């Protein structure tokens, strides 16, 4: 056991994830109907984050992340977070992920959980004319809140 863990145990510190931030090694829930995502969730081996594409290292809503899923590297977008949100932005019971290709289009064809409205604006902002197009993700959502 490493030293920080030993210190935490000896001082009775709680190591529970109070802030519920999405960082490296956080397990996520795949909420689209892509084959690989469905299999991973069914096997009880949900994907984990090993890179967040922003400068903070903490994934916020609409951020792109790289995940390890069934021994593969895949990119995904965070579409719902457990962490406390700003006023009027929904907070979910799970950290939700939608898997995407490199060009920004989603792998699956349907999202089966509600998606926050604010994601429309965020996805539009992140889409560039020559880069990836993330707005297709909005098109496959079944319900917005």
């Amino acid at each position, binding site marked *: 056991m490493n030293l920080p863990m030993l210190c935490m145990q000896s001082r009775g510190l709680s190591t529970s994830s109070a802030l519920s931030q999405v960082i490296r090694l956080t397990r996520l829930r795949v909420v689209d109907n892509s084959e690989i995502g469905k299999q991973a969730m069914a096997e009880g081996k949900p994907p984990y984050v090993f890179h967040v594409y922003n400068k903070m290292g903490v994934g916020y809503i609409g951020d792109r992340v790289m995940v390890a899923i069934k021994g593969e590297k895949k990119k995904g977008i965070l579409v719902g977070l457990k962490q406390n949100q700003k006023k*009027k*932005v*929904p*907070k*979910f*019971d799970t950290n939700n992920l939608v898997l995407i290709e490199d060009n920004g289009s989603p792998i699956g064809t349907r999202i089966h959980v509600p998606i926050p*409205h604010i*994601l429309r604006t965020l996805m539009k902002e992140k889409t560039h004319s020559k880069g990836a197009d993330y707005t297709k993700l909005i098109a496959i959502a079944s*319900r917005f809140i």
Partner: protein
Amino acid sequence: MAMSVRVRLGSQFRNIMRVCFHENRHMSTAEIVVEKSENPKEPERISLEEQQRLNDIAKNERMEKLLNMRFAYQEFLPDPNPKNRNTLKERLERRDMLARRSNVEIPEFYVGSLVAVMHSDPHAPGKNNRFMGICIQKIGAGLRASFILRNFIDGEGVEINFDMYDPTIQRIDVIRLEKRLDEELFYLRDAPPEYSTFPVDMEPEYQPEGSAVPVNEIKVPLKPLPWLVKWERMGMKGIRDVTSMLTEKRLRMSKLKQFNKPWEKYDLLKMYSETIPIEDQVEIFSEIQEKLHELEQHRYKMKRSRNFVKPTKMG
């Protein structure tokens, strides 16, 4: 003789005398009683005392009515921390809150009530958005008052935090007005989904006017461990017995003094520093009461006038 002297005295002195008489009653009753029966000005004296008593009763009733406003209008009470108190800021904030209330009806609701909020949302296609759920927390003083609504939608637990005096809010509807056993219902996050699932298009339930707010005494079972919070230590009333789920060590830990804090039950200074004193509360509520009543009357009139449909010309 004492009586005749008293009648001539000023009103302030009369009170003092009354107290003296009251205190010394057991010593000098005989003398006073004799004078009472002989004094021709007795009816006046009784009426004065009677009037005083009636005034006191009326005053107490008024006070009680004002103080009972604290349940429905909790956010009008300021932050009790003396560091954060500022009478001018509080007064200005109250004025702004009343101004907001004159535009939008913010109804009375409590933790445990079902509430639907309609608000403008620049991100939504129709620029409007509606969310309905159970209120699991009401917190904050002044314009920063906020509440959290929780619901299960498509099998996913969703919570939204709203500012109560947010200018983008168009309407707040109370679908079901009720209270629960606790002041916060965060344990619904660790409860099975059926305990926080409510159909979005629920019809509002109306109660007869003037009836007391019902208390829903439901006890919620929790999902198996792990939980987000160690609920066994929190002393929540609305949770079903969880001892069978816990390990022996955890059960023992939950009974420790340091978590139950029995000495805090009668800690008077702690209680004082967490509340706004009666005098301040009366001052605040007597300031806002008139305006709130006016708004209510106005809204009642408007509702009646809206019911009348103007006949339109056909063809």
